[in-house]
C-alpha cells in the first residue's frame, strides 16, 4: 500500500532513470490524484547505445532522448516534467552548492511531502551520486520538522551488505503495464534489455516478475553525512 502524499518530487539525472525502479510508484501516486514533479537533470547526451549500424549520432541523441523522456512522462500520466539543462556525466564537476540551490529551489517551488532520488554512495553512476548528494544536502539543511520524506533507490553491489534490506517496498502489479510502457518509451536505451525482459516475463521467470512488480526504497538516514 502506497501512502497518500501531498506532492511528490522525483529527481534523477538521466532520462530512463525513473523507468526501472520508480515508474510504478510515480504512476500509482498520479492515479491516487497526487501531483508528481519529475526533475530530470540531463538529457543523457553521453548515452552509448547508438546502434551498429548506428541509428543516431552523439549530436542527434539528445533530441531523441528528449522525445523519449516526454513519451515516458506521458506513459506515466505525469504532466510536470522539468528538464534542468545539465550535461550528462558532468554533474559531479558542477559547483556543489549550485547543485544544492537547484534542488532547494525545486523543493521551495513544489513543497513535496515525499522526495525520491538515489541513495548516495550506493547508486553506481557518478551522475547518480552527485544528484543524490545534492538532494540529501538540500533536504538535510531544512529544519527537521519541515523535511519531506526522502526515499532513495540503491543498487550498488554492496547495498544489501551495508544498508540491509530496503525499508519500503511498493507492490506495483496494478500498474505493471504502465511501467513497461515507460521503459518502452525509452526505446533507444532499453530495446536490448526489453527483449530479454519480455521473454523472461513470458516464461514466468520469478526474478523478472519481482523486478517489474516491486519497487524498493531506503529512507535516507541523515546521520550518514552529506550535510
Amino acid at each position, binding site marked *: 500500500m502506497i501512502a497518500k502524499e501531498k506532492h511528490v518530487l522525483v529527481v534523477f539525472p538521466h532520462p530512463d532513470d525513473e523507468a526501472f525502479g520508480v515508474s510504478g510508484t510515480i504512476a500509482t501516486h498520479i492515479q491516487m490524484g497526487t501531483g508528481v514533479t519529475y526533475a530530470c537533470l540531463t538529457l543523457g547526451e*553521453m548515452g*552509448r*547505445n*547508438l546502434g*551498429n*549500424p548506428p541509428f543516431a*549520432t552523439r*549530436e542527434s541523441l539528445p533530441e531523441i532522448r528528449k522525445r523519449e523522456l516526454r513519451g515516458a512522462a506521458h506513459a506515466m500520466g505525469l504532466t510536470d516534467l522539468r528538464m534542468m539543462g545539465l550535461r550528462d556525466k558532468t554533474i559531479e564537476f558542477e559547483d556543489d552548492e549550485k547543485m544544492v540551490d537547484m534542488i532547494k529551489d525545486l523543493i521551495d517551488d513544489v513543497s513535496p511531502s515525499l522526495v525520491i532520488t538515489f541513495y548516495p554512495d550506493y547508486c553506481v553512476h557518478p551522475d547518480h551520486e552527485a544528484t543524490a548528494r545534492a538532494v540529501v544536502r538540500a533536504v538535510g539543511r531544512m529544519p527537521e520538522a519541515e523535511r519531506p520524506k526522502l526515499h532513495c533507490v540503491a543498487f550498488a*553491489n554492496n547495498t544489501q551488505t551495508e544498508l540491509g534490506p530496503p525499508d519500503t517496498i511498493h507492490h506495483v502489479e496494478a500498474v505493471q503495464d504502465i511501467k513497461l510502457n515507460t521503459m518502452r518509451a525509452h526505446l533507444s536505451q532499453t530495446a536490448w534489455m526489453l527483449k530479454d525482459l519480455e521473454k523472461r516475463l513470458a516464461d514466468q521467470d520469478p526474478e523478472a516478475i519481482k523486478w517489474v512488480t516491486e519497487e524498493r526504497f531506503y529512507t535516507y538516514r541523515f546521520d550518514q553525512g552529506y550535510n
Partner: protein
Amino acid sequence: MQPVNLNEIQSLIDQFANKDVYIHLETTNGSYATHVDEAFFNAGAFIRNAKVRYELGKIIGDAPSRVGLKLELGWIYAQGITHYELDSNKRLLMAGHDHQGKLAVALQISETPFE
C-alpha cells in the same frame, strides 16, 4: 552514419585543415563497466569544444580505423573509428561503435561550437 569510407573521410578531413575548428573527442567504456565486472579497470576521456587548427589530418587503416590530426604544437588522435557522417550542420562526426552497438570512441570536427 555510414561505415568508414577512407577516401571520403580523408577528403572531408582535408576540408577542415588550416581552419579554426572545434573538436569533440571522447573515449568511454560506460559508467557501469566496473559495476558489471568489478575486475574491470574503467577509464575514459572527454573533451568538447577544444578550439584548434590542424595542418595535416589523416585516416589510416581499414575500419576500425585511426584518425590523427597534426596541430601546430601537438596532436589529436582517435582509434577504433567505424562510422562517419557529415551532418546537416556540416560537422564531420566520426565514431567507433562496438559489436553491441555501443559507442566506444568519438572524434568530431566542426567550424562552429558544438551545443
